[in-house]
């Protein structure tokens, strides 16, 4: 109001008042009945003055009104402009809020009654899907007892709740948000609704996690290389890797993985990682001699940020492991030697006694000598198996790979084990539709596998039965199965069957001979061939032990795989 009646306004009003006073004075004169007074004034003077003062009043009033109207219009225009600006500002702020925060309104029972566009985008629910749902839909169960209930208590108490939350989107993805929940009450003090304002900080949390992971990678003692799977161009090398190679962080991208070692054989490397490229393995490892000692390199194939395939190789210094392995191997070799020498005398003596060279034995003496001979054989098998396991573990066993036809190899295995089968009245039968089945393998080691599986099948087969050896394609692999019609293996033995000295108690109660190490050796040998061993069994019907071994990629290449390569 003060702005409407400025000094100028008051001056105008004052002028009008003065004109009105003048007019009233002249009006009084006009109606003056005092003849004496009229005698002293010229005729018509009063009337003229009256008209004049009236005109003045009207004129001044009109002017003042015009000035006031103009002034008033300016003020209104100014107010309208300001109001418009204010509305625009509110719109901008609303847009900013909508763009930045996922906002929802829920009633006193936590039922969602409205959401904004950002909420829809953030949580993946359409408006119609989410309106009418309880807020709890946004929470994983484990949070229900904590945050969700705390919010209820806080807002009902009339307080604003603020905090960080882990909510869940429609897709199941975790959404990290900073949340402020403002309660609103009616005149009676009852909670009528909550305004839920949430800022999505998932990307920030992810970036923090990524940053943390990068820092961890940098600080790892193991060397880490990330590089393009096709060009082998490096994209990242951690601090340990850069230190060894003598590179700055900025120049890593100028190098390829082949530049990380002086005698890096790119062809051998591509052969080594072929199982990753063709999907046969998720990781390949190799042990090599490095300029800083023996290292184990584990390589994986992953999809890069731009979906291009990348290799991630981790180099681990295994010099200590090698030293321990060598020491262990040495101990086992010594123990083996120390056991073999007396065993030579025992077995030799028993053999000479059994043969009759030393004179005829009584039947009772003969049976006792046989027991001793049988158990000295068993002891020798255990010693040999332990030595084999240690040799495989220590990388001392020869695993030179060569092209091998599984068909011919299996026929040889059957011929070689036929004598053993005969001693149990068991025969072997090859079942296959294939003519050839090429692999890259070590025939001596695979013969050990077949001999182990076939002798197990033989021992558990009923007398007069057939053990079937089946070879069939299995995707990119050949499946070699050894099938018996024995008592079967209980499923409870599945977890321990391939561990050392695990022997299953047969359902028929008959104990079969064996060292309890055969399947451990089988598994270890097959692992070096990138092959997997498993079994299927039905109690009372028999067991099928099988292994899936990769079909040869190129049988024309006699590709030697390093003795120390691991699958």
């Amino acid at each position, binding site marked *: 109001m003060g702005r409407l009646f400025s000094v100028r306004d008051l001056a105008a009003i004052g002028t009008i008042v003065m004109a009105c006073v003048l007019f009233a004075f002249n009006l009084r004169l006009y109606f003056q009945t005092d003849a004496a007074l009229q005698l002293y004034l010229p005729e018509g003077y009063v009337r003229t003055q009256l008209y004049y003062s009236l005109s003045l009043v009207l004129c001044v009033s009109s002017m003042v009104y015009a000035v006031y109207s103009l002034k008033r219009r300016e003020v209104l225009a100014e107010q309208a402009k300001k109001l418009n600006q204010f509305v625009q500002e509110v719109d901008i702020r609303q847009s900013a809020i909508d763009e930045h925060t996922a906002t929802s309104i829920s009633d006193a029972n936590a039922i969602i009654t409205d959401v904004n566009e950002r909420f829809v985008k953030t949580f993946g629910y359409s408006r119609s899907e989410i309106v009418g749902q309880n807020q709890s839909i946004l929470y994983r169960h484990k949070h229900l007892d904590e945050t969700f209930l705390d919010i209820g208590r806080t807002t009902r108490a009339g307080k604003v709740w603020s905090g960080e939350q882990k909510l869940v989107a429609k897709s199941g993805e975790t959404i990290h948000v900073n949340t402020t929940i403002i309660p609103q009450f009616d005149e009676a003090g009852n909670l009528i609704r909550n305004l839920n304002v949430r800022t999505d900080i998932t990307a920030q949390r992810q970036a923090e996690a990524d940053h943390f992971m990068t820092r961890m990678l940098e600080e790892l003692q193991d060397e880490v290389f990330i590089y393009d799977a096709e060009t082998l161009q490096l994209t990242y090398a951690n601090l340990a890797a850069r230190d060894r190679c003598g590179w700055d962080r900025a120049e890593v991208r100028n190098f390829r993985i082949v530049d990380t070692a002086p005698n890096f054989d790119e062809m051998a490397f591509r052969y080594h990682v072929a199982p990753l490229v063709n999907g046969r393995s998720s990781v390949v490892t190799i042990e090599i001699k490095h300029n800083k000692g023996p290292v184990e390199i584990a390589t994986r194939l992953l999809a890069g940020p731009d979906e291009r395939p990348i290799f991630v190789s981790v180099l681990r210094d295994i010099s200590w492991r090698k030293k321990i392995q060598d020491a262990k191997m040495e101990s086992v*070799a010594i123990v*083996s*030697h*120390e056991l*073999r*020498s*007396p*065993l*030579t*005398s*025992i*077995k*030799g*003596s028993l*053999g*000479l006694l059994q*043969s009759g*060279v*030393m004179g005829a034995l009584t039947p009772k003496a003969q049976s006792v000598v046989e027991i001793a001979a049988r158990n000295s054989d068993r002891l*020798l098998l255990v010693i*040999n198996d332990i*030595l084999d396991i240690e*040799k495989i573990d220590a990388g*001392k*066993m*020869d695993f030179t790979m060569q092209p091998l036809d599984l068909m011919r190899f299996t026929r040889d295995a059957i011929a070689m084990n036929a004598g053993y089968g005969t001693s149990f009245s068991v025969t072997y039968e090859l079942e296959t539709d294939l003519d050839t089945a090429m692999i890259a393998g070590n025939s001596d080691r695979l013969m050990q596998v077949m001999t182990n599986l076939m002798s197990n099948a033989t021992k558990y087969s009923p007398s007069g039965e057939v053990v079937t050896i089946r070879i069939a394609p299995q995707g990119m692999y050949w499946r070699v199965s050894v099938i018996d019609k024995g008592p079967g293996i209980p499923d409870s033995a599945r977890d321990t069957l391939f561990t050392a000295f695990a022997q299953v108690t047969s359902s028929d109660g008959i104990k079969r001979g064996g060292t309890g190490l055969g399947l451990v050796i089988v598994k270890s040998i097959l692992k070096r061939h990138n092959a997997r061993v498993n079994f299927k069994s039905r109690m009372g019907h028999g067991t099928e032990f099988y292994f899936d071994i990769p079909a040869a990629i190129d049988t024309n290449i006699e590709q030697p795989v390093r003795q120390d390569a691991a699958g």
Partner: protein
Amino acid sequence: MALKRILHVDDDEDIRTIVQLALEVVGEFEILQFGNGPGAVAGAVDFRPDLLLLDVMMPGMSGPEVWRALTALPQLADIPAIFVTAKAEDEFSRDLTRQGAMAVIVKPFDPMTLASQIQEIWDRNH
């Protein structure tokens, strides 16, 4: 050339007994045995062996050292050797073969077939 005389060196007396029975009784070889390398070096020339059968790991002189010492003697310069060892590692056997050993027999051996096994190796190399 027929194989008749075998000089056997092993520090384990029991094994010497087994080998003697295996080669003299089961096989029909003439055998002279020693429990250590120096004894063998001293007594080998008079025996005029056709073949050495040497244990590898012995205290004092090892089997390969005994072989080298004997082949240093002019009378035994070309004497072949078969080694007997309890060390079953492939690499170890390959090393001995590379050094010129005629064969490597791994303990424990079968006394009933030892003589025929040695004869077979001998025939294969002559």
